[in-house]
C-alpha cells in the first residue's frame, strides 16, 4: 500500500514540477502569476486537509491566510526581522489562534461549524479594519520589506517564484507524511462514518484538531508569502473573497487529493488572464466553474484524471506475506460487568437499573421487542451514548465515562445495524483503517490479511465498500470490528438481511470467535439464528431484564413467551 502512496506522491511532484519549469522560462509577469498560484496552492493544501479529507466545512481558511499576512507583514515592517523569522512568527501566532478557536468550535457539527468559523473570520476582518493604530485600518500597511533568505534579498521574480514553490513542495511532502497509510484510510472512515470510526478506536477529536491546526499553519504560510511578495497587507486579505477563492480552487482541482489543490490554484489564478473580458468580474467565472464542478465532477479535475488516466491498481493480495498470523489477540479470561445501568430519554425510561455480565468464551443473545432498550444498551457499552446512572467495569476498571475510541482500544468492538457505506475505501483499506493503533504498519498489514483469510471477503479485497452486497457488507463490519482486536464484541443485528445459508456461515464464524476467547453479545430478532448459537439468552422489556439463562429456560419463561407470542399462546 505504501508503494501506491509513494507513486501518488511522484504524480503530485510531476504535477508541481511541469508548470514550475514552464514558468521559469516565461517573462516576469508570468512568473508573478505563478508565484501567486504557488501561494494559493499552499493555502488550498491546508483547506484540502480540513475540508477535502475530513469533510469539515471550515470558512476560516481565508481568515488564517489574512492572519498570516498581517502577523508576518507587521513584524517585518516594525522590527525589520528576516523573512524566515517573520514567517515562523506568523505560523506560530496563527497556530495558537487556531488552537484557541478550536477549543469551542471543533466540536460543532456541519453547518454550526461553518457558521462559527465564518463568524470568527468576520470578527478578524472587523478588527483589521478598525484597529487602525496597529493594522493601518482600511488602507492597510505598506512598506513590507522584500523577501530575503539568509541575508540575501530575493529581488528577481525568478527567485521569489522558486522560493514559493520550494515551500509548496515542502508542504506537499508534509501533507503526504501526515496522510500516510493507514492514517489516510482512518481519516476517510472518520469522514464517512464518524461513529464507526470512534468505535473502531480512531480518536476523532485528535484528527480534527490536527487538521484544523495544519490548515491554519498552511494558510498562514501562504498569507505571509503573499504579504511579502506584494509588499502590502490590507483588509482585502481577510475578506470572504479569499476564502471563496481557496474553496473554489480546492473543489475544482479535486478536494480529495493534494494534487487537486495545486491544479485548482494554478487554474484559478490564471483564469482572470485567460478571460480578460471579464475584467474585475472574474469571480463570476469562479462561481460558474465551482457550480459546474460540484454538479458534474464532484471529485474535481484530479478526480477525473485519476478515474480516466491513472487506473487505481488497488491491492495485490498475492504479494502479501503468507506468514500465519492469529487474527485475534490471545484474550485471557476477561469480563465486562454492568451494574445499575439507567438511561432516560425525555420521559421514557430506555434502561432501568440493568445488570449484566459478559465473560470470555461465552456468547450471549439479547432479545426483546422494539423499544426494549437493546440498541441503547449496545450504544452505552460502546460509548456512543452516556448512561444516566450505573457502572461498566472491564477487567476491574471502570470505563463508563471513557470516550468511545478509548473503549475500543481497551477491547470493546461493535458492529452497527446499518452497514458502512463509503465510496472512497475498498475492503482492504477499511479493515486496515480499523487495525489496532498499538502495532506498526507491517504488523497491521499482516493482521488485516489474516482477518481477510478467515473471511469470504478474501476474493473481494479491491471492491469499494459501497459496492458490496448486503451479506458482504455485514461480513466487512465484522472484519472491521475484529481488526481492533476485541475482547468484547457487540453485534447489533448481524443476521438482518442474510439468507439462511449466510446465517449459518455467520453462526459458525461467531462460534469460532468465541472459542478463541472473545466474549460476544448478539442482538437479533431472528430466533432461528440466535438459539443454536448462544450460550445464554437475556430477554429485555422496557429497559429491564425479564428472563435470563440458557435458551431453553428463557423460552419456557411465561413472561418472555408473553412478550414474543402474546397472551394467546402463554
Amino acid at each position, binding site marked *: 500500500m505504501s508503494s501506491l502512496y509513494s507513486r501518488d506522491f511522484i504524480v503530485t511532484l510531476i504535477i508541481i514540477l511541469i508548470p514550475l519549469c514552464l514558468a521559469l522560462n516565461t517573462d516576469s509577469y508570468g512568473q508573478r502569476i505563478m508565484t501567486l498560484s504557488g501561494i494559493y496552492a499552499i493555502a488550498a493544501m491546508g483547506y484540502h486537509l480540513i475540508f477535502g479529507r475530513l469533510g469539515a466545512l471550515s470558512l476560516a481558511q481565508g481568515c488564517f491566510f489574512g492572519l498570516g499576512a498581517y502577523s508576518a507583514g507587521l513584524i517585518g515592517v516594525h522590527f525589520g526581522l528576516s523573512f524566515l523569522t517573520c514567517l515562523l512568527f506568523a505560523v506560530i501566532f496563527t497556530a495558537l489562534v487556531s488552537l484557541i478557536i478550536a477549543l469551542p468550535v471543533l466540536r460543532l457539527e456541519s453547518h*454550526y461549524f461553518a457558521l462559527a468559523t465564518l463568524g470568527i473570520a468576520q470578527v478578524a476582518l472587523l478588527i483589521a479594519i478598525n484597529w487602525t493604530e496597529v493594522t493601518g485600518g482600511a488602507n492597510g500597511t505598506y512598506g513590507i520589506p522584500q523577501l530575503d533568505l539568509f541575508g540575501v534579498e530575493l529581488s528577481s521574480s525568478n527567485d521569489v517564484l522558486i522560493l514559493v514553490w520550494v515551500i509548496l513542495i515542502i508542504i506537499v511532502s508534509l501533507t503526504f507524511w501526515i496522510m500516510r497509510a493507514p492514517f489516510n484510510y482512518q481519516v476517510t472512515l472518520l469522514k464517512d462514518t464518524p461513529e464507526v470510526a470512534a468505535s473502531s478506536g480512531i480518536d476523532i477529536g485528535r484528527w480534527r484538531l490536527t487538521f484544523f491546526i495544519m490548515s491554519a499553519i498552511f494558510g498562514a504560510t501562504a498569507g505571509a508569502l503573499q504579504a511579502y511578495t506584494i509588499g502590502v497587507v490590507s483588509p482585502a486579505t481577510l475578506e470572504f473573497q479569499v476564502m471563496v477563492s481557496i474553496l473554489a480552487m480546492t473543489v475544482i482541482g479535486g478536494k480529495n487529493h493534494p494534487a487537486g489543490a495545486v491544479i485548482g490554484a494554478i487554474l484559478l489564478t490564471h483564469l482572470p488572464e485567460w478571460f480578460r473580458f471579464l475584467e474585475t468580474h472574474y469571480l*463570476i467565472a469562479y462561481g460558474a466553474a465551482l457550480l459546474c464542478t460540484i454538479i458534474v465532477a464532484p471529485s474535481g479535475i484530479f478526480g477525473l484524471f485519476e478515474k480516466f488516466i491513472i487506473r487505481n491498481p488497488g491491492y495485490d493480495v498475492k504479494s502479501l506475506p503468507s506468514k500465519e498470523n492469529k487474527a485475534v489477540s490471545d484474550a485471557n479470561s476477561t469480563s465486562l460487568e454492568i451494574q445499575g445501568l439507567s438511561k432516560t430519554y425525555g420521559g421514557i425510561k430506555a434502561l432501568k437499573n440493568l445488570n449484566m455480565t459478559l465473560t470470555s468464551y461465552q456468547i450471549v443473545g439479547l432479545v426483546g421487542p422494539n423499544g426494549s432498550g437493546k440498541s441503547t444498551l449496545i450504544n452505552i457499552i460502546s460509548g456512543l451514548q452516556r448512561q444516566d446512572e450505573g457502572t461498566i467495569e472491564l477487567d476491574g476498571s471502570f470505563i463508563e465515562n471513557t470516550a468511545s475510541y478509548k473503549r475500543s482500544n481497551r477491547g470493546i468492538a461493535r458492529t452497527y445495524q446499518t452497514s458502512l457505506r463509503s465510496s472512497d475505501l475498498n475492503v482492504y483499506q477499511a479493515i486496515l483503517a480499523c487495525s489496532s493503533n498499538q502495532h506498526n504498519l507491517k504488523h497491521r498489514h499482516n493482521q488485516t490479511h489474516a482477518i481477510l483469510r478467515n473471511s469470504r471477503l478474501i476474493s473481494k479485497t479491491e471492491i469499494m465498500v459501497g459496492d458490496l452486497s448486503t451479506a458482504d457488507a455485514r461480513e466487512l463490519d465484522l472484519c472491521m470490528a475484529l481488526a481492533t482486536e476485541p475482547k468484547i464484541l457487540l453485534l447489533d443485528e448481524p443476521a438482518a438481511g442474510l439468507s439462511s445459508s449466510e446465517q449459518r456461515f455467520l453462526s459458525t464464524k461467531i462460534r469460532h470467535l468465541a472459542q478463541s476467547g472473545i466474549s460476544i453479545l448478539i442482538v437479533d430478532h431472528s430466533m432461528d439464528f440466535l438459539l443454536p448459537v448462544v450460550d445464554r439468552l437475556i430477554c429485555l422489556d422496557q429497559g429491564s431484564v425479564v428472563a435470563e439463562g440458557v435458551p431453553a429456560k428463557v423460552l419456557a419463561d411465561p413472561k418472555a413467551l408473553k412478550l414474543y407470542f402474546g397472551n394467546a399462546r402463554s
Partner: protein
Amino acid sequence: MLDISLQIILNGISLGCAYALITLGFVLVINAIGAVNFAQGDFVMAGGFLTVVLAEFMVADNFNPIRASGVIILPLVLISMACFGFLFSMIAYKPLKNRPPVTVFISTIAMGLIIQHSINAGFGPEPQIGPALISSGTITIGTLTISKQQISIILSASFLILCVGFLMNKTQLGRKLRAASQDSEMAESIGINGPQCISITFSLAIALAGAAGLLLSNQFFVTTSDGGLYMLKAYIAVTLGGWGRLDGAVIAALAVGLFEVIMATLVSYVVAEALLFAALLLVLLFRPSGLFAEAIQRRT
C-alpha cells in the same frame, strides 16, 4: 428623549422585520432540504436591485412618482423573485439532491458569487436607493414623531410573515410542504410530489428574500456586497432561534435587528457587529440547540 428612543426602537423593529423575512426563507429551505442556502443574502440584494430597476422604469414610463412606490412594486418583486427561486432550485439544488448537504452549501456559495458579481458588473459597486413604500416623511402624534417609511416596513413585513404563517399552518399546500420537509419519502408514499414541494419552498424563500430587499432598499440603500452580511444575520437568527423553528427564527431576527440598531446608536456599528458574533459564539458554546429548543431532528 422619549421620541428619540422610540424612534430607535421603531428603527430596530423595522430592520428586525426585514431580517425576519430573510430568516424565514432561510429556515424554510433548511427544513425542506436539510441544507443551508448560502445565497439567501445575495437574493435580498438582488431583490433590492430589482426594486430600483422597476421603480426607475415606472417613473420613466409615466413621470408619476406615486406609481413607483414600493407597495405597488412589491407584488412584482415577489412574483419575479419566486420565479428566480424556482430556477435557482433547478440549478443549485436539483442535480445535487442525493448528495450530502455540504454539496448544496457549496453550490449555493457558487450561485451567490455569480449573482453578486453579475449585478456588480451591471450596476457597479455604488449604493443605489429604492423607492419608499408609500411615502417618506413623518407623522406626528402628540409629541411623537414617527417615520412613515418605518411604520409601513413593519406593517408590510408583518403582513407577509402572517401570510407565510397562514400558508404553512392553515392551507393544504402548507401541510404538504411541511410533510415533505419532515419526511420526503413518507410524504411521497402518500401522494405528495416531493420535488415539487421543494421547488415551491425555494420560490417562497427567495420571494421573501426579494421582499426584504425591497423593504430595506429605501432606508438602508442597496449595495452589491450587502448579501454576505444579510446571510450572516439570517444564519445567526436561525441559530439563536433554534435550528429549524419558524417562530423562533422570526423572534430571533427581530431581536437581532433591535440589538443591532440600539448598540449602533449607543456605541458604534462595529461594536454592535462584534457583540452579535460574540453572542453567537456563546450560544453555540453553551446552548447549541438555540435559545428555543430544536424543533426538528437535525439531519446529517
